[in-house]
């Protein structure tokens, strides 16, 4: 009964999404405010219906209702309850439902937060979001209904993919999707700007917080994903240039460019068409990512669907959305007034222009590497794969200059900056960065290498120069800094921390495969690993062979590690659980290979210096986004407007 209610709610959500998409457009064309006003209540209704639908599916999982095919395929009575809930988004149908649920959450947020916007703007934004939502609802209802029943109902489900049975999995997809879908808001604002023909500072002030919020979620989602991969895949790596990772990374690159270009458009009133184009591109890449993951053209950890109908539908939906918005752009964008003054190289807008160029080119390089094998296969050029070395070779030279630019970010003033100012303010940070960068690997790891030092200098440069700005401001005014500035600083510090982590882990990270019998010891990277044997254990839905290892350093035992090999009973799948001794400066990472003769096991030992800094950098950047988002200027203005409007309406009543 409940699954049918969920299905019905999904159908109603589609009806409301169509209302939300179509009526405001009619109202806009005919200048009928009553039709425009339908958008917000329709968005709320759609949210309620999707929420109902989502809860029904979650309940079906919670109650182990295996007559629902999707539940039977992705759950099991032995599965702990929190994984049963997380299993809602463990495969194709449910993750689409999550996608739409989050999209309607954003729509409702827009409906409530944009009461201060002109009615035609907010309705137009909601109409665009409604049409995207209808596209996905139609797709779900006709090709991937999560509520489809199977009769007779199986007595037991097939279990959730063991790879996904990890705490990281509970949070990673919702965060990532929040980011993906969040760029839909920026996209909707861009389309609205094209329709109404207005890109002014008010428009950028509305668009900025939404873009920032989406970016923050995407950053968190990608960071969590990388962390999950490190913990769960047992390969000791944090980024694999897997096509699905790239699918989330491309919108991130373009979204980062968008945040920076929005700043220029707000402060200086230039780059208008460029900003609008970036907003369209960012969301198009989100759709492309969805297409790549959902259509089964990719071979990947994440690609669980191989169904051509779905692929064709998503591809044509992608074509319609991107094609129509680009046509609209081509027709309307030339009307935006371009700035008349030339952009100085030594100015903040010049700096941000460079930032944008590098980010967009980097995104294009990733796009080529991701799509080329698919195109080649489609055109019959042979089955080709583009390996991580391509991405490393292209990506590092393209992003290193970006980090250099970060250092100048706070010093560079709008319009024009004198070279002397740059010199006088940046020599000390540069000197400090070089000292820290040279000393850091030597003090913490006792080793040295050209690439590692270069990376550390680069990272410290970003950190030190960002802090210089804070120190100078605090000393100068003694006031609390605006949160936006603190957010920017924190995000740039995060980039620096990330760069240090990446360069040290790739320079000094090492691994070794060894055969170990119980009682045997191996010395690796200065640590003594002793194997004590393997013990059989039982989990809720798996049996585990858990190894017992001790790690000693300088004759003192510093850690006990328990890497395990799990056998998930219902799905008959083996999973490696790594044993990790984490630390600020290094991780020691063990994973069990396979049993060999005489109770010996093949064991893989990884030494990963500074690997935690990578995720710390990502989370710092996301936190910076959150801090900037909480800046008063985004909130105060709306309150003032709101009270002004209330006053205006009371005056009319008085009159």
């Amino acid at each position, binding site marked *: 009964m409940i699954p049918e209610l969920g299905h019905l709610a999904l159908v109603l959500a589609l009806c409301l999404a169509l209302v939300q998409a179509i009526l405001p457009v009619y109202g806009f064309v005919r200048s009928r405010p009553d039709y425009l006003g339908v958008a917000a209540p329709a968005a709320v209704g759609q949210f309620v219906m999707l929420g109902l639908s989502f809860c029904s599916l979650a309940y079906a999982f919670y109650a182990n209702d295996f007559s629902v095919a999707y539940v039977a395929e992705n759950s099991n009575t032995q599965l702990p309850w929190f994984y049963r809930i997380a299993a809602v988004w463990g495969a194709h149908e449910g993750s689409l439902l999550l996608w739409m649920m989050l999209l309607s959450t954003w729509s409702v947020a827009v409906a409530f937060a944009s009461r201060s916007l002109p009615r035609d703007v907010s309705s137009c934004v909601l109409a665009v979001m409604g049409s995207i939502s209808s596209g996905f609802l139609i797709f779900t209802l006709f090709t991937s209904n999560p509520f489809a029943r199977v009769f007779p109902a199986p007595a037991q489900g097939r279990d959730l*993919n063991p*790879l996904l049975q990890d705490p990281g999995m509970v949070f990673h997809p919702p965060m990532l999707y929040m980011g993906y879908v969040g760029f839909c808001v920026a996209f909707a604002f861009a389309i609205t700007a094209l329709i109404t023909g207005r890109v002014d500072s008010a428009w950028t002030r509305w668009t900025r917080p939404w873009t920032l919020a989406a970016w923050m979620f995407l950053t968190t989602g990608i960071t969590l994903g990388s962390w999950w991969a490190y913990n769960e895949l*047992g390969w000791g790596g944090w980024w694999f240039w897997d096509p699905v990772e790239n699918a989330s990374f491309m919108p991130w690159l373009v979204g980062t460019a968008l945040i920076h270009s929005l700043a220029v458009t707000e402060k200086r009133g230039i780059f208008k068409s460029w900003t609008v184009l970036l907003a369209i591109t960012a969301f198009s890449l989100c759709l492309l990512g969805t297409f790549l993951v959902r259509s*089964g053209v990719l*071979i990947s*950890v994440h690609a*669980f669907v*191989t169904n051509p109908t779905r692929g064709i539908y998503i591809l044509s939906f992608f074509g319609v959305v991107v094609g129509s918005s680009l046509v609209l752009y081509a027709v309307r964008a030339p009307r935006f007034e371009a700035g008349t003054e*030339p952009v100085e*190289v030594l100015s903040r807008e010049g700096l941000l222009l460079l930032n944008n*160029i590098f980010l967009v*080119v980097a995104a294009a*390089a990733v796009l*080529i*590497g991701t799509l*080329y094998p698919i195109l080649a296969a489609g055109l019959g050029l*042979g*089955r*080709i*794969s*583009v*390996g991580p*070395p*391509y991405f490393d*070779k*292209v990506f590092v*030279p*393209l992003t290193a200059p970006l980090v250099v630019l970060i250092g100048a970010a706070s010093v560079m003033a709008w319009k024009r900056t004198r070279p002397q100012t740059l010199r006088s303010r940046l020599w000390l940070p540069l000197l400090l960065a070089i000292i820290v960068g040279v000393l850091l690997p030597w003090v913490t790891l006792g080793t040295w290498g050209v690439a590692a030092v270069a990376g550390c200098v680069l990272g410290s440069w970003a950190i030190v120069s960002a802090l210089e700005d804070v120190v100078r401001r605090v000393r100068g005014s003694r006031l609390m800094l605006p949160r936006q500035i603190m957010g920017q600083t924190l995000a740039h510090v995060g980039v620096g921390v990330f760069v240090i982590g990446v360069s040290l882990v790739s320079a000094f990270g090492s691994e070794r*495969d*060894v*055969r170990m019998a119980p009682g045997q010891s191996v010395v690796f990277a200065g640590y003594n690993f002793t194997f004590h044997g393997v013990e059989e254990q039982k989990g809720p839905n798996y049996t585990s062979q858990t190894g017992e290892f001790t790690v000693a350093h300088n004759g003192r035992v510093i850690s006990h590690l328990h890497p395990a*090999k799990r056998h998930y009973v219902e799905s*008959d*799948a*083996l*999973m*490696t659980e790594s044993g990790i001794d984490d630390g600020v400066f290094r991780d020691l990472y063990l*994973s069990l*290979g*396979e049993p*060999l*003769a005489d109770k010996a096991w*093949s*064991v*893989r030992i990884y030494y990963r210096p500074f690997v935690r800094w990578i995720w710390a950098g990502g989370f710092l950047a996301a936190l910076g986004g959150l801090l900037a988002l909480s800046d008063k200027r985004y909130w105060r203005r709306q309150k003032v407007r709101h009270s002004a409007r209330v006053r205006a309406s009371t005056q009319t009543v008085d009159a």
Partner: protein
Amino acid sequence: MTRTRRRRLLLVGGLFVGLAAAVALSLSAFSQNLMYFHQPSQIVAGKVPLNTRFRIGGLVKRGSVQRGRGLTVRFSIADCKASVPVLFKGTLPDLFRPGQGVIAYGKLNSKGQFIADSVLAKHDQNYMSPAVAKELKTKQGNSCMPANLQASR
């Protein structure tokens, strides 16, 4: 030529040089890192050059897995028509089993052995990489495909 003009020319020139460098860089990186996918029957037929790195995909031939001393493993990767001996030293993935579809990365030596530097198995045993699945199709249908995979397709 005025100062602003000269500066703008410099800027445009700089951007152009940068873009050219980026394109050159990516093209060279691209051509060096493309990896082809070959199947055992192509290799046995001698159509694959020696000493270039490529991927091979197929099923692990039943009864072919032999462990040597230490971590060396010998097995064969087969498609419907032929099989190629593979030599690998290291840890095999969780889903490596006789009869399973795998992909190995490495080079062919002069004795016709494939020296693998990494071996991947699919993460979901009910799922097979389209590249491997395609080559296992014979004219009669999926005759070499393991039974559990035939059912899911």
